[in-house]
C-alpha cells in the first residue's frame, strides 16, 4: 500500500519551523499559535491515517511513500521513503498528540519569554525530526531524524542561555549523544557490508543469511546508539543536566518522545536482535542496570526535575529491558513507552506548573503543602504518580506489571535476576515518587515569603488534565483483550510462544503490589515525621535544619535507605569519576595532544622545511621497507 499523505506529517512542521525562523520578530505576535495549529494538524493527519489503517486487515496495514531516490553510490541505493506501520503510527500519535498538548501548555508557560516564537520554531523542528526518525524506512533515513532530534534537543537545552549551567549541560549531552551516534553509523556500515542494503525491509529479508557475528556486531552498535539517545548506562549522565532546558522541553523531548528513540530503534531492529542472542542479553543487562541506577539516583535528588529525570531514565530502563526479552517483550516495551509518555509528560508539566507558581524554584525542600493552593496540579500530578508506581487500575500498572511478569518468566536463572531487579526497581520507584509527592504537595509550607504559589492558567492545566486522563485510562485501553500485543504482532513477528511459566500472573502482580506498598510505606514513615515544625518566617535556618535532619535520618533511621544511599553515592561517584572521568580523560588527551602538536607549529619556515625533509626521509624509508 502507498499513501501520499505521509510526507505532510513531516513537511508541515518543518515548513512552519523554517517559516517562523525566517520571519523573525514579525511573527512574534502569532507565531506560537501558528506553530500549535501546525502541530495539531499533524496530529489530525496522524489520526486520519490511523483510522484508515484500522479499517484494513492486519497484514496490509503498513503504508509506504517513496519521496525520491536519495543516494546512489555504486551498487548502493537508498530511497528517501517513508513507512507507516503499526509501530510507527503508535509513535506518530504519541509525538503529535503529546506534542500538541505541550505546544498549548507552552503558550502560557513561555508567555513572558521574549523569544517565545523561536522556542516554538524549535519545537516544530523537533516534531518534524522526530517524525522523520519514526517514519524513515531505512536506517539511513532514521539516522537523519536521529541527528535532527539531537540538534533540536541541543538547541532547546541551551535555550535559556542566561543560565550558566546550559553550557556544560549541552556539551555533556552532545558528547554522550555523539558516542551513541558513532555506534549508529558503525551499525549502518556493518549492516550495509553484510546485507548490501540498509532499508528495514531489505535487512529483514536477508537477515537469515547473515553470520551471527555480524548480527551481534550490528546489535551491539545499535545498543550503543540507544544508550546514548535514551540515556542508558553507561551514557546516562547527560539527561539530568539536560533539565536546564525549559520544562515543556523536558516533558516532550526528555521524557515522552526523544529519549525513547532507543526503544524504538531496538524494537524496529527486532529481526536483528532476535537472531543475535548475545546482543539481546546485553540489552537486558543494560536495561536492568539502568532501571536500578535511575531509581536509586531518584531517591537522592532534591531538584524536582532531576528527580523526574532520574525516574525517566529508570522507566526507559524498563522498556529497554523488555525489548531484550524477545518477541514477547517488544509489545510491552512499546506499551509502557506509550503509557509512560502520558504520565511522565503529565508529571513534568505538573512540575512546570509548580515552578511557574514558585518563581522557577526547583528545590523540593522549598515546597511543601502546595496541594491546597494548586489543587488541579496536585490532582493531575497525583494521577500520574499513581500510574508510575503501578497502582491498578492506572496506566503504569498494566504495562509495568507485564514487563515484570515477562522478565520473571524468561528462561533460566536470568529470569530470577532480572525479574528481581524489576521488582526491586518498582519498590524504589514507589519510594522516591512518594517522596516527591510528600515533599511537594503535603505537609507544611516551607517556601520563601516572596513566593506566591498559585494555580496555573487554563492553557496550562488543560493539557495536564488531558494527560492525566491518559495516565488513568491508557493502560486499560491498550491491554484489555491483549489489544496492543496483537496490534503490534505483524511488526515484531511475535508468534505466540508458550513459556513454561515460573510464576502465575497473579503471583507476580501480588508481589509487585506488595513491593509498591512497602516503598510507599517507607517513604511515608520517613518523610511524614520530617514535616518541619519551625515557622517558615526564617527560611534559611529552617532549610539548614531540614537538611541536617534529613542527613541524620539517612544515617540512623532508614534501614533500607542506608545501603541504598551508599549505593547511590557510589553510583554517582562512579558516574562522575569513571564515566565522566573517561569522557574528561579522552577530552584531556585530545586537547593535550592538540596543544602538543600546536607547539610544532612554531612559525619558523625553516622548521617547516625540516619537517618536510624529515617527511621525505620517512616516506622514502617506508616505501623502501615495504618494497624490499
Amino acid at each position: 500500500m502507498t499513501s501520499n499523505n505521509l510526507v505532510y506529517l513531516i513537511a508541515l512542521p518543518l515548513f512552519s519551523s523554517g517559516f517562523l525562523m525566517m520571519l523573525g520578530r514579525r511573527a512574534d505576535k502569532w507565531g506560537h499559535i501558528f506553530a500549535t495549529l501546525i502541530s495539531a494538524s499533524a496530529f489530525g493527519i496522524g489520526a486520519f491515517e490511523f483510522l484508515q489503517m484500522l479499517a484494513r486487515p492486519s497484514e496490509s496495514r503498513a503504508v509506504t511513500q517513496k519521496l525520491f531516490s536519495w543516494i546512489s553510490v555504486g551498487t548502493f541505493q537508498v530511497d528517501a521513503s517513508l513507512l507507516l506501520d503499526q509501530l510507527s503510527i503508535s509513535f506518530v500519535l504519541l509525538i503529535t498528540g503529546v506534542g500538541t498538548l505541550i505546544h498549548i501548555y507552552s503558550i502560557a508557560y513561555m508567555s513572558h519569554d521574549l523569544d517565545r516564537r523561536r522556542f516554538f520554531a524549535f519545537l516544530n523542528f523537533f516534531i518534524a525530526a522526530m517524525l522523520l526518525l519514526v517514519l524513515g524506512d531505512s536506517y539511513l533515513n532514521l539516522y537523519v531524524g536521529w541527528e535532527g532530534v539531537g540538534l533540536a534537543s541541543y538547541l532547546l537545552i541551551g535555550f535559556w542561555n542566561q543560565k550558566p549551567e546550559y553550557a556544560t549541560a549541552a556539551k555533556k549531552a552532545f558528547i554522550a549523544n555523539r558516542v551513541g551516534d558513532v555506534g549508529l553509523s558503525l551499525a549502518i556500515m556493518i549492516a550495509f557490508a553484510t546485507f548490501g542494503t540498509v532499508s528495514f525491509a531489505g535487512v529483514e529479508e536477508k537477515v537469515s543469511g547473515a553470520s551471527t557475528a555480524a548480527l551481534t556486531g550490528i546489535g551491539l552498535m545499535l545498543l550503543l546508539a540507544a544508550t546514548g539517545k535514551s540515556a542508558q548506562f553507561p551514557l546516562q549522565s547527560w539527561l539530568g543536566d539536560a533539565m536546564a532546558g525549559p520544562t515543556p522541553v523536558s516533558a516532550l523531548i526528555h521524557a515522552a518522545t526523544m529519549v525513547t528513540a532507543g526503544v524504538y530503534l531496538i524494537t524496529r531492529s527486532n529481526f536483528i536482535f532476535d537472531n543475535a542472542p548475545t546482543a539481546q542479553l546485553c540489552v537486558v543487562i543494560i536495561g536492568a542496570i539502568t532501571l536500578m541506577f535511575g531509581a536509586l539516583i531518584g531517591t537522592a535528588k532534591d531538584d524536582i526535575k532531576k528527580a523526574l529525570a532520574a525516574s525517566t531514565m529508570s522507566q526507559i530502563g524498563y522498556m529497554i529491558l523488555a525489548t531484550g526479552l524477545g518477541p514477547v517483550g517488544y509489545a510491552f516495551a512499546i506499551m509502557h513507552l506509550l503509557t509512560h509518555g502520558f504520565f511522565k509528560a503529565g508529571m513534568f508539566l505538573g512540575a512546570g506548573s509548580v515552578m511557574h507558581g514558585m518563581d522557577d524554584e526547583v528545590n523540593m525542600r522549598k515546597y511543601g503543602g502546595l496541594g491546597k493552593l494548586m489543587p488541579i496540579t496536585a490532582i493531575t500530578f497525583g494521577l500520574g504518580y499513581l500510574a508510575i508506581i503501578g497502582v491498578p487500575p492506572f496506566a503504569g500498572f498494566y504495562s509495568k506489571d507485564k514487563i515484570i511478569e515477562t522478565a520473571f518468566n524468561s528462561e533460566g536463572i536470568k529470569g530470577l535476576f532480572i525479574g528481581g531487579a524489576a521488582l526491586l526497581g518498582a519498590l524504589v520507584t514507589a519510594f522516591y515518587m512518594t517522596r516527591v509527592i510528600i515533599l511537594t504537595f503535603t505537609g507544611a509550607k516551607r517556601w520563601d515569603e516572596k513566593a506566591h504559589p498559585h494555580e496555573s492558567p487554563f492553557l496550562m492545566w488543560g493539557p495536564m488534565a488531558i494527560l492525566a486522563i491518559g495516565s488513568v485510562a491508557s493502560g486499560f485501553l491498550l491491554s484489555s483483550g491483549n489489544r496492543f500485543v496483537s496490534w503490534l504482532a505483524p511488526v515484531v513477528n511475535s508468534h505466540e510462544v508458550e513459556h513454561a511459566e515460573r510464576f502465575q500472573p497473579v503471583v507476580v502482580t501480588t508481589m509487585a503490589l506488595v513491593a509498591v506498598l512497602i516503598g510507599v510505606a517507607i517513604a511515608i514513615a520517613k518523610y511524614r515525621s520530617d514535616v518541619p515544625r519551625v515557622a517558615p518566617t526564617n527560611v534559611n535556618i529552617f532549610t539548614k535544619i531540614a537538611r541536617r535532619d534529613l542527613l541524620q535520618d539517612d544515617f540512623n533511621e532508614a534501614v533500607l535507605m542506608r545501603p541504598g544511599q551508599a549505593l547511590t553515592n557510589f553510583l554517582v561517584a562512579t558516574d562522575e569519576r569513571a564515566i565522566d572521568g573517561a569522557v574528561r580523560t579522552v577530552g584531556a588527551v585530545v586537547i593535550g595532544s592538540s596543544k602538543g602538536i600546536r607547539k610544532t607549529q612554531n612559525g619558523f619556515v625553516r622548521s617547516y622545511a625540516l619537517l618536510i625533509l624529515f617527511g621525505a626521509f620517512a616516506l622514502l624509508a617506508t616505501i623502501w621497507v615495504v618494497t624490499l
Partner: protein
Amino acid sequence: MSDTPVLQYSFLAPILIVLGGAVIGVLLEAFAAAKRRAVLQLTLTLGTLFIAFLSLLRIRNLTSAKAAMGSVMIDGPTILMQGTILLIAFFAVMIIGDVDNFTAQASAVPGSDEEKSALQAGRQQTEIFPLTLFAVAGMLLFPAANDLVTLFVALEVLSLPLYLMAGLSRHRRLFSQEAALKYFLLGAYASAFFLFGAAFLYGFSYSVTLSGIHAAVIGGTANNIFLLIGLTFISLGLLFKVGAVPFHAWTPDVYQGAPTPITGFMAAATKVAAFGAMLRIYYVTFAEANWNWRPILTVIAIATMLVGSIVAITQRDIKRMLAYSSIAHAGFLFTGVIALNKAGLAATLFYLLAYGFATIGAFGVITLVRDSSGEITDLNRWAGLGRRSPKIAALFSFFLFAFAGIPLTSGFIGKFAIFTAAYESGNIGVVVVGVLSSAIAAFFYIRVIVMMYFADDNGDSLTVVIPSPLTSIAIWVSGGVTLVLGVYPTPVLNAINTLATFIR
C-alpha cells in the same frame, strides 16, 4: 621523419580560453583607465570562466581523447574535475570581486605614507584577476596532465600566482606578506622534490608519459630503486599541495595570512586540482605498484585526519581552525584515493565538489564579519553573532554542519560515499579512524555555532557588513548547492558514476 604537432584546440578550449582571458587581463592592466579597471577585470574574469565552462560542456561527452600529442588526457574524470574547478572559481571570483579585501598597492611598505596615499587615492591592485585566471588555467591542466613535463608546468602555473595572491591582503599586511613568503619557499621546496622525483621516474621508465611509466611498472624489469625514489618524491610534491601530514605545516599559516577570499579559493580549487592529479597518478600509473605506496598513504591518511581534527580543537582563529579542518578533510579524501576502486574515485570527486562549495561559502561569510580595522577572525569575538545577524550566522552554521558531515548537507553524503568506498576496498582501519575523527571534528564545528548563538554578546564593535550583491549571490548559491547535494544528490552522483573512469 617528423609528425606535424596536432593540438586539438577544441579539446583544450577550456584551458586555452582561461589562459587567453588571463593575457587580455594583463593587457587591460596596461591600457585600461585605472578607475574602470576593477569593473572591466571582474567582467572579463567572470565572462572568461563562463565561456570556458560552456566550451567544457561542448566536450562533455568525450570519455577518451588525447590532446596536444598525448600530453593532455581528456576523459571523464578530467571533465568532472575541470567542471568543478570552473564552477568553484566562478563563485570564488565573485567574492574576490569585493576588492576591499586587497591592498591598494602591494609594493608599498605597510604603514608608510605611500600606502596611505594609495588608499586615499582609491587605488586597487586589480592584478588579482589575471592572476586568478592563470592559477585556474594551471588547475585545469593539472588533473588532465598526462606526462611529467605537463604535470610539472601545470603545478607551477597554478602555484606561482597563488604565492603572489597570498600576499595581497589589505589589512594585517605583515601577516599576509609572511604567508606569501612561507607559501612560496615551502611550495618551491616541495616542487623541487617533485621535479627530482619526476627525473627518476624518467630514469626508471625512459618515458615521460604516464602510460609509458605504467608500462614500465607492469614490465617490472627496470631499476626499482629509481621507481622508489621517483614515486616517493612525486608523492611528496602532491601531498604538499593537498596539505597532508607531515607536509601540512604551511597550511594554517598561509590560510590565516592570505586575504580571506583567496584562502577560500585556494582551499577549494587547489584541493580539487591536486587530488585530481593524485588520483590520476595513483589510479592510472601506479595502480599495479599499490603494495608500495598504499601502506604509507594509509598511515598518512590516518595521521592527516587525526592531526587535522585534533589540532583544530584548540585553535582560537577561525581561519586557522578552518585550515586545520581542511587538513582533516584532505585525510578524508585520502580514504577515497587509497580505496583504489571506481566507487572510491566517484566518491572522491563528489566530495571535492561538496567540500569546494562549502569552503567557498564559509570563507565568503568570514569576509563579511569585520570591524573598523578589517576582518575579525578571533573566534572569541564572534560571540553573539547569531543574535546580531541571524541569517548570516545560520548560513555559516550550515556550512559548518556540512564540514561536520551532518545529514541533509552535502558533507554527509560525501563522507558516507567515501567511507563506503574505503570499506568496500577493505580498509576498515581507515574507516574507523575516519569516523572517530569526524566525531572529534564535529566538536569544534559545533563549538563555533555555540559561540555564535549561545555565548554572551561581549559588546564588541564587530559588525557584519552588508554583502555586495556578487558576494551574497556566491555565498547563498554555495549554501544552496550544499543543501541540494545533501538532500537530492542522485543526479550528480549518477553523472559522476557514468563519467568516473580513467583512461590510460
